[in-house]
């Protein structure tokens, strides 16, 4: 007999419940969920076993498994669950806890996931950017002074090279380092928990993962929440588009020394605008889908909505800032751009702790799953 000793952890179960898995105790282990799930592997499928681990508080089994990330929360399981145990929601909660578990510093994880700290989180970039305005002397009695009478250009208040980009470069470095630390721990935990020898090398696992992400080939198998994969795809590609836009803009400035604002006919504008509109459309679809599927798959937690809010904020403030600039309404335009900077900061700086982190953890898990022949 194996010496594996099961150590139930009531605290962990309670934590999952608190994290949005309040229905997890309703599961009576029928495995309807695993069968209706079109994205699970046939061997050791999820989410039935995860539901059991969650009920017993088996933290090690849950947080060191790639499976929770193979779930795309299609909610087919939740819709067909005979007990209303909402496995999709529970796995969502476990994913959130995975991010919190591996991200550091852990206090950041808690803050990002707690509505009480929302104002503080937004206050940090607000103060940073106000401080930059102060240094440039754009503040009068602590109130920003809007440049008037000139052609509107946000670089007047926020010069990219000197003030904006350094902030974001530092933010990005922070995020990357934090992600790296988290992913390293996560990979090690998964490897320890899955002693079976890998069947694939990491490189081909990465390639296969990227292919899967680009095509959304697994996500598309979702039944009940089919629309979600479309919405996600739009948001995903809009982020890709925006990343290209940012890269292009950076090369204009730093390589070609060509400063904005750029004419609307410029390629960077094209890509940026299409991506920005797609982002807004996509994220609106995400919100509508959540309401539409509320009954069958649940509305989601603060963790979900915080992320949706940020993405929506980034897209909306970005588009509005551009429109206000073109319409030449500086009194609204400059504050809007300020807001945009704050949102973008929030998106990147807190990415290792917010739902944005799913991008990294899910990818890691997918690679691991392929590497360990799990999917």
């Amino acid at each position: 007999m194996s010496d594996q000793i099961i150590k139930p952890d009531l605290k962990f179960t309670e934590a999952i419940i608190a994290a949005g898995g309040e229905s997890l105790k309703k599961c009576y282990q029928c495995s309807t969920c695993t069968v209706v799930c079109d994205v699970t592997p046939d061997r050791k499928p999820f989410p039935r076993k995860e539901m059991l681990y969650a009920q017993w508080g088996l933290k090690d089994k849950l947080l060191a498994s790639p499976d929770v990330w193979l779930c795309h929360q299609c909610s087919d399981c939740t819709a067909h669950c005979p007990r209303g145990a909402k496995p999709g929601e529970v796995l969502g909660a476990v994913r959130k806890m995975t991010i919190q578990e591996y991200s550091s510093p852990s206090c950041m994880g808690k803050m990002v996931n707690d509505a009480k700290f929302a104002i503080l989180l937004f206050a940090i970039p607000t103060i940073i950017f106000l401080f930059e305005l102060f240094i440039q002397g754009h503040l009068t009695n602590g109130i920003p002074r809007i440049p008037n009478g000139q052609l509107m250009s946000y670089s007047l208040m926020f010069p990219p090279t000197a003030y904006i980009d350094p902030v974001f470069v530092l933010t990005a470095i922070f995020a990357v380092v934090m992600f790296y630390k988290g992913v390293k721990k996560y990979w090690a935990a998964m490897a320890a928990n899955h002693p079976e020898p890998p069947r694939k090398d990491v490189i081909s696992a990465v390639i296969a993962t990227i292919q899967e992400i680009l095509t959304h080939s697994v996500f598309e198998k979702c039944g009940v929440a089919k629309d979600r994969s479309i919405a996600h795809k739009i948001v995903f590609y809009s982020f890709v588009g925006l990343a290209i836009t940012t890269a292009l803009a950076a090369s204009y400035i730093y390589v070609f020394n060509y400063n904005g604002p750029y004419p609307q006919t410029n390629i960077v504008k094209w890509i940026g605008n299409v991506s920005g509109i797609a982002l807004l459309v996509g994220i609106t679809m995400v919100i509508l889908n959540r309401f539409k599927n509320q009954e069958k798959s649940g509305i989601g937690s603060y963790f979900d909505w915080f992320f949706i809010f940020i993405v929506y904020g980034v897209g909306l403030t970005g588009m509005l800032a551009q429109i206000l600039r073109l319409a030449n309404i500086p009194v609204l335009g400059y504050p809007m751009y300020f807001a945009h900077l704050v949102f973008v900061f929030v998106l990147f700086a807190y990415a290792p702790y917010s739902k944005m982190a799913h991008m990294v953890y899910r990818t890691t898990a997918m690679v691991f799953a392929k590497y360990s022949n799990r999917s």
Partner: protein
Amino acid sequence: MEKKLALYICKGCSIGDAIKTEKMENLAKNKYKCAIAKTSDALCGEDGLAMIKADIAAEGVNTLVLAACSGRVKYEEFDFPGCIVERVPVRELAVWTQEKSDAQLAFEDYVQMGIIKAQKGDMPEPYLMETVKDILVIGGGISGMNAALQAAEAGSKVVLVEKEAALGGFVSKLYKKIPTALPYKEPLIVDAEIEPTIKAVESNANIKVFKSAKVEKIEGQPGAFDVTITANGGSEQVRIGAIILAAGWKPYDASKLGHLGYGKYKNVVTQVELEEIARKGGITRPSDGKPAKKVAFIQCAGQRDANHLPYCSAMCCVTSLKQAKYVRQDPEAVAMILYKDIRTPGRLEYYYKEAQNDPGVMLTKAEVSGVTEGPDGNLFVEMTDSLLGSAVKLEADLVVLATGMVPATADDPVLNLQYRQGPGLPDLELFNGFADSNFICFQYETRRTGVYAAGAVRQPMNMSEAQEDATGAALKAIQSAEHVATGMAVHPRAWDLTYPDPMMTRCTSCKRCTEECPFGAIDEDEKGTPYFKPGRCRRCGTCMGACPERIVSFKDFHVDMIGSMMKACSVPDDEDEPRILVVCCENDAYPAIDTAALQKTKIDPAVRFVTLRCLGSMNLVWLADSFSRGVDGMLLMGCKFGENYQCHFAKGSELANYRLGKVQETLDRLQLESDRVKMVEVAIDEYGKVPQMIADFVEKIKDIGPNPFKGM
């Protein structure tokens, strides 16, 4: 009653097309002295019925032979109060199942048999004796108390005997129970509240309670049981009409569960012991009195297990869920339930769901292979085939074994009946000692008339089921006392006013009847002479079939009657035309034949059917007589017997089969082949098979050749 016979032949339903009636009418009048022999185009029609009624009124006929359809139909039309009515199913047996060429002879045979039956039968006169209707309830637990209260509510006087010093049974030992009514919402554990029930029983003027008491012996019969109760060193005799056995259960002996650590480790307890621990306040460990924080419940401990109790006790899953809530009164403690299958049938599923919906109540399917102790006194439950892994251990500081229910009757007859056949209920071994019914449709049937079991002594069940069960048993007890008071049988012949009336002067005290009676209705006196207790009798006629002296008779059913009917049946002289008598049970085999007839299935013309109350009443003399007059074969059709017997009289068909084993002697004496007689088991839905069974038998008889006694 001065009998005046009348024969009425129906010509409807194509009877008239297949047969000629004149010969029969003449035979009836001349040979059988019928006052009237008439035909009708539709005897069940207004004209036909009016004709019969007019004859009853004007001619005073009172014994009516109706050669028409089966007695299973048109029973309302052919109901003539005050008259003996013999229904001869010529439609089914002579017309629908026979080719036209064979119908006439079959018709004549059946009608003559019917006339003889009517001639030989009499109106029943009930057996009346002095009876009481008081009810004895054995057991003062939840079932017994409810049975007593329900019977008292219905107006009966009740005597309740409890072996303990106080009423209440297991319920009084509980810390909490599950809520009695839906919906199952928090709190999922509520006070057991047995006190009001105990008070209601003890204060009820119609209920006399004996505590610390035992039923020493029960003599007599339903309506007049003499029950000796011993209590407080003294003994008292009471007269009782009917008995409810609600002696309950005891927990399975956990000391046999050493592999689960019981007896070895102090912190392994049973569910029953956990109730006691909980009653003392808080779930603590017996070893050190510390609060238990990790409690493992092992379901089916010594149950569903060929080495222990092979059955499921049906209530342990809910009990463990309930006890998990005891554990969870400490918010830091966890209850871990290890089950084979969670069994919360019906709406108990809701209880499962609610009890489970607690972070500290954890469940998994598992096969527990053993319990070991760690160095710190903690226990390790070893499991295989669990959902948590195929071979894992679970650490617990207290282990609770869900041991099963053992009925009080498993090793103690409890009733202490002073019956020739023994002190307890028969058939207990079929049900692992439970006093259960063999009949799916008739849950309160026992093989001791007037004795009805209720609660956990009957089947494993929970408290609310036990209360319902007790109510039903109360009805059955009341009903049986009522019936015996009017001389009427109880189930399954709950209409029957006849009773066995042996001619004792010819009894040889061979004791076959006393041994064979499925209901223990016949005792023996000091000299060994059978002594019939009609109150215990179900009127199956097994005694009549058993008696070699043929002395047991019912008013409308006796050896001579059936024998004479058989004698009235034609035996063709032609050696190619065998005559086979099919003796069948009226409850199942006959309805099957009736159904075959309804479908116009043809049956071999060699056979003539004779129906009996039960095949148990089959007397071997009929075989001897029939064979000696040239009948070629005898086929007996009875119900399935053995473990899952279907005979409504429990043993009838089996006994008929047993007697056939002894018929060889008779056949040898007649120098006949033993294959000329055969018994087959026929269920009521085997109407499709009956014609073939018969054809096969006829074929076999033809192979054997004609009976040499033919024509002698």
